[in-house]
C-alpha cells in the first residue's frame, strides 16, 4: 500500500469517526424534556384590543415564552400596552406594569403604575375596554387563570374610572 493510499484510508476513517461522534452527540441530547432551562422558546398569544367601533378585536403576537407563568403574562400584557393595529391603546402608553403575581390557585395580580388611572381618558366605554382587554387577554392565553386583580402602585383601588368595581378580582368568565 502506498503512503498516499494509507493517508487516504486514515483520512476516511477519521471522517467516519467524526461523523459517528457527531451522531452520538446528537443522541446524547436529553430527549425527554429536552429543552434546557436556559433556552426560551416562543409562543403566539392572542391580544384582545379595542377596535375602531369600540368592540374588541383579536390580534396575534409572537412572544418569548418560558417556564414561568408570571413572565409570560407580563410579556402578553406589555404587548397589550404597546397597542394594536387599529392604533387604540387600551392601557395608557405611559403605564408601566410593575409586577405580576400568581397565587397558584388561578389568581393573577397585575400591579400597574399610577398612570393606568391618571392617564386614562375616563368614560365607561373606555374603562370597560381597558378591563376587558386585560382580563380577556390573560384569561384566553393562560387557561389556568380565572381571576385577575388589578392594583395601582401596589394598592387595591375601588375603581379605575368610576364605574367598574376593582376592589375584588375580576372574574375571567364574566368578561368573555
Amino acid at each position, binding site marked *: 500500500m502506498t503512503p498516499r493510499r494509507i493517508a487516504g484510508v486514515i483520512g476516511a476513517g477519521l471522517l467516519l469517526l467524526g461523523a459517528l461522534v457527531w451522531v452520538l452527540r446528537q443522541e446524547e441530547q436529553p430527549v425527554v424534556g429536552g429543552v434546557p432551562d436556559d433556552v426560551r422558546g416562543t409562543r*403566539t398569544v392572542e391580544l384582545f384590543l379595542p377596535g375602531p367601533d369600540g368592540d374588541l378585536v383579536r390580534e396575534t403576537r409572537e412572544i418569548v415564552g418560558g417556564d414561568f407563568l408570571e413572565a409570560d403574562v407580563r410579556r402578553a400584557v406589555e404587548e397589550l400596552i404597546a397597542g394594536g393595529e387599529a392604533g387604540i391603546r387600551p392601557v395608557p402608553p405611559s403605564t408601566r406594569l410593575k409586577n405580576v403575581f400568581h397565587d397558584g390557585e388561578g389568581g393573577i395580580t397585575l400591579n400597574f403604575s399610577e398612570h393606568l388611572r391618571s392617564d386614562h381618558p375616563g*368614560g365607561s366605554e373606555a374603562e370597560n375596554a381597558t378591563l376587558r382587554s386585560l382580563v380577556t387577554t390573560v384569561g384566553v392565553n393562560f387557561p389556568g387563570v380565572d381571576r385577575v386583580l388589578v392594583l395601582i402602585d401596589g394598592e387595591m383601588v375601588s375603581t379605575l374610572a368610576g*364605574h367598574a368595581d376593582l376592589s375584588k378580582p375580576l372574574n375571567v368568565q364574566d368578561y368573555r
Partner: protein
Amino acid sequence: MKPGARAGLRRALLLGVLFAAAVAPSFAEDVRELTARVRSPEEPRPRPLASYRIDGVDYLRLNDVAQLFRSTKYWRAELEKMVLKAGERRVRVTVGSPFVFVDDDGYQLVAPARWLDGDIVVPVDFATEVMDGVVPESVSWDRDRRVLHLDTGEPNVLAVAYDVRSNGTVAEISLAVPLGGELEFPRPDRVELRIPGGVLQHRLIGEHSAVGLLESVTAAQQPGYASLTFRLGPAGGAAELLTRGSPPRLLVAVSEALGSDDIPLPDFERRAADGEGPRDVRVVVLDPGHGGSDPGVTSASGLAEKEITLGIARKAKEQLERLEGMEVHLTRTGDRFLSAEKRAELANSVHPDVVVSIHCNGWFDSNLRGFSVGVPRAGEPSVDPELPRWGTRTPRSRRDTETLAEILLQRMGEVLPIPSRGVRTAPFAMIEATRSPVVHIECGFLTNRSDASYLVDPDFQTTVANAIVDGIGEYRRVLAGGEGGR
C-alpha cells in the same frame, strides 16, 4: 470524445437521474389548500383555520396547533425538531418523521411531519390524538365539514337566581349553552336537578342559602353532569322543570305542598314571567354619575361629566315630580364624591321602582360618538354571599330592566341629534348592586368634538332630561297595562 470528458458526462447524467428521482415525487403529490374552521364553546362563530390535504391526508400548520393550545415553541434547527411545551408536558415533533413524543410516550402519526411553503405541517391526528391527551380540551376533527372541534370544558352552568311569588318559588339556572336537565327526588324535602354535560361555574360549587320555598341549594360537579340539590322548606312540596332558550335557562318551579296533583305550574310560570298584571311606577332614583374628587370625563372646554350629569338629573327630577307625580330621589344633589356601593345602598334603601344612572362617555380617541343605554350583565349569581355587588335581581326585574332600556333608547333616539349605540351590557358596580330595574345611560362622548358641543349645551341637557322623563312615563304605562316583561 476524450475519456475524461466521457467520465464527466456520465457523472452529470447520474446526478441528473438522482435529482429527477428526488424531485419527481413532489411533482406527483396532490397538495390542496383547504379552508377549515375551529369551533369552541367560547367562540360564538367558528374561526378560519388553514388546512391542507396532501395525498388524502389532512394536515394543519404546526404553528396554528401550537397557538390553539397556547404552547411555547422551541425550535432546534440542527435536528429540524420542534418542541411544544404545553403546561408541564413537552411534545417533540421531527420534520420528516411520523413519530412524535410526549415526554416519554411515543405516538405514530398517519404520515410524517413535513415542510410546506416554509411552514411545518402535521397530520390532523397530531391534534386529535396527541394534543388531545396533553391539553385540557377535548379535540376532534370533522373531516367532511373540515371543522376542528375544541371542547374547552369551560363552565356552562353560570348562575342561579330566584323569583319568589305568592304561590311558589322559581329557581332560574342560567346556562352558557342550551342544556337539558332531569329532576330527581332523593328525599321528600330534596329536589335534585341533574344537568348532563353541565360544568359548574366554580363559585357556584358548595352550599348556598336560597329564598322563598327553597331553603338552600347545594351545587356539586359530578363526572359527566352538574348537580343542583335544592332543600325545600316546610311549605315546599312539588317541583317541575321547565326549559327556556334565548338566553338558555332551566327553571325549577317549586309550589307549596297542596296535597294535590293539580299543581298550576304552567300558569305559575307564566305569571312569574309576566309580572302578575298591572303594576305602578311611583318611586324613581336618579343617579348623577361621578362628583367631588371624581370629575368623570372632562370636555375640551373644561366642563366635567359630573356637572353635566347633575344638571340632567335635576331637570329630570323636577319634571318627573311635576308631570308624573312620582317620588324622585337623587343619589347626590351637590358636588360630592360617592362610591358605587354607597350609591347602590342609597338607591336600594328607598325601594325604587326604577333607577337611572346618568353618565357621559369617553374613549381613547375622538372617533367614537353616540348615546347608549346600559343594562347589568345577565346571570347574576345571587346565591353567592361572597359577591354582594351583584345584588339579588330577579328574572322579573331583569325583564323590566330590558323593557325600560328599550323604551329609553327609543325616546332618546327620537329627540337627540347624535347617533344611537343601542342597548349595551354595562358591568358596572352601581347598577349591578341595585336590586330594582336599573339602567346606565350614556348621553354622548365628551371625547368627541361633535357630541361634546351638544353635551355642554344646557338646551341639549334639557332634551336628554325630557327623553328620560318621557321614557319612564311610557314604562309606567306599559307596566300599568300589564305588559311588563317580554
